[in-house]
């Protein structure tokens, strides 16, 4: 079986200085939804741009459905739909016209072209505004139009670089429902990057976490969470924050694997049931009064924290990207002199 994406020891060095990819290997099975998670500058966009034949890797190999992305680039281009991180539609024509031009570029036969366009417009809820100039669209509508462009040609694989950036949560949910339906109907593979943890958690079959050009963890969401090896006990404690030497003692006691301090006291233990009474006993004997206790599984956030060392800052970043996109959009209007 050919993998939808097969990457071996991929390295990309920009200008002989910036090591954007530092030996990435990963496989994506056909029909799968694959998420690439990573902090800013991790190399997500670089990987997507190599897979979509825009950039040549410095070393290593990459295949899309068995086709070499360098030597068989033109064949690869017939299989892919791509939504870049930046805005990628013409703003001085209508949404419908954008789709029409793309359909022609891809050589979608005249027969059925109209229908295909109407269909993706409908799927992305753009029918009502299809004849308006794109420069009058909201950021979210533009993103939907871009996804519609990628769907239009019914690609075997879609590469989506932060497809839902700038969309509100309700719109994100709708977009993912439509993408999932599209995938089911046409058996497409989806390869996407995101800054939204929940998105990867909910919609991806497989997740790779990438940091500084290296894949640091890969697997199904459940597996990744499991790989932390344990459960999280969260205790309501009046005396927060705890005294530092008490935290030290707790760490050394062997009762817990990890201590997270926040509003409440959270600890990572391998098995919560036997650990809980011991933990309560320990705290009581130190004069700490404990309120409610809850046991949860680790979340993808915890996984990210462990492998990358920081949490993903999605909010600030989304607004920054939206700002840049707006700037580009306005640039078009002042651009012609």
């Amino acid at each position: 079986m050919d993998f939808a994406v097969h990457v071996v020891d991929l390295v990309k060095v920009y200008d002989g200085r910036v090591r954007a990819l530092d030996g990435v290997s990963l496989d994506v099975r056909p029909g799968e939804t694959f998420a690439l998670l990573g902090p800013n500058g991790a190399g997500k966009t670089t990987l997507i741009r190599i897979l979509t034949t825009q950039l040549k890797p410095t070393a290593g190999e990459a295949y899309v459905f068995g086709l070499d992305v360098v030597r068989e680039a033109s064949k690869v281009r017939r299989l892919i739909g791509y939504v870049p991180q930046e805005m990628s539609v013409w703003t001085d024509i209508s949404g419908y016209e954008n789709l029409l031009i793309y359909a022609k570029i891809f050589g979608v036969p005249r027969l059925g072209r109209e229908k295909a366009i109407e269909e993706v417009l409908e799927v992305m809820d753009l029918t009502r505004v299809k004849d308006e100039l794109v420069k009058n669209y909201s950021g979210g509508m533009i993103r939907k139009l871009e996804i519609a462009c990628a769907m239009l040609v019914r690609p075997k694989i879609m590469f989506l670089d932060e497809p839902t950036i700038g969309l509100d949560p309700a719109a994100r949910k709708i977009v993912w429902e439509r993408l999932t339906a599209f995938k089911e109907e046409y058996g497409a593979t989806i390869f996407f990057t995101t800054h939204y943890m929940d998105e990867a958690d909910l919609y991806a079959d497989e997740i790779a976490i990438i940091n500084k050009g290296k894949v640091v963890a890969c697997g199904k969401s459940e597996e990744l969470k499991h790989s932390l090896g344990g459960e999280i006990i969260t205790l309501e404690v009046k005396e927060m924050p705890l005294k530092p030497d008490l935290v030290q003692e707790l760490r050394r006691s062997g009762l817990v694997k990890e201590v997270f301090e926040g509003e409440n006291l959270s600890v990572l233990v391998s098995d919560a049931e036997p650990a809980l009474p011991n933990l309560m006993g320990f705290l009581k004997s130190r004069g700490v009064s404990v309120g409610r206790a809850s046991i949860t599984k680790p979340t993808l956030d915890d996984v990210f924290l462990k492998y990358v060392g920081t949490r993903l800052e999605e909010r600030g970043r989304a607004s920054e990207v939206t700002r840049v996109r707006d700037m580009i959009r306005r640039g078009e209007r002042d651009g012609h002199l």
Partner: protein
Amino acid sequence: MAIFEKVSGILTMIELELRRLRHDRTELYTRAVQPILWIVIYGQVMSSVRAIPTSGVPYTDFITPGIMVQTAAFASIFYGLTIVWERESGILKKLLTTPASRYSVVIGRSMASGVRAVFQALIVLPVAVVIGVRLVPNPAYFVLAFIVIFLASGGFAAISILVASFMKTRERFMGIGQAIIMPLFFASNALYPIQMMPPILREFSAVNPLSYVVDATRGLLITGDVSNLLLDLVAIAIFDVVMFVIASISFKRIIE
């Protein structure tokens, strides 16, 4: 089939440009102001001075084709601004992941610019006629003149795509655009016959594509003298092919 695909890619790019023009023509009008001033003011004043020998043709008539070609070339050179914008956004990245070959993207975009340039040149013509410029009354010549302008503008647009793949910002691009067109314009036969130029400029004029374009359009629109037409067309064809090839080769680096 490959050829068919390339041609249809080129036609699609032209269609894109026509659709843009249909939605917004202000740029066409604002860009028409300058050439109209050249013809109406500069042309009329110089005409009354009779300082430049134009072998019997009224001076305003003499420069009208030159000004039309200049404005078309300008429009084409600044077409690269669109390309710069498309690079800053993700459009070019996306275009280069489609089956369209980079040749058809470059040639298509250049030809699309040629279409815009033809409109740009056409818009000046009614004004010239109103102030008394007399055209050769031959529709075939008229059409041919605009085909010449279309083809030549494609070459200038290719220069502009080439420049766009090196210049990363709009401001720098503007500067370079001026620096290319103005010398070509002043060192051409657009405003005065080549015989009037100092020898060194005369030699430059022989390799200045603008001179051939002006010569062809002047013959077709004003004097009716088409004895050099074949030479002019060959020169323009060479210019186009060379520019298309160079621009296509450099195009890939535009998104790196």
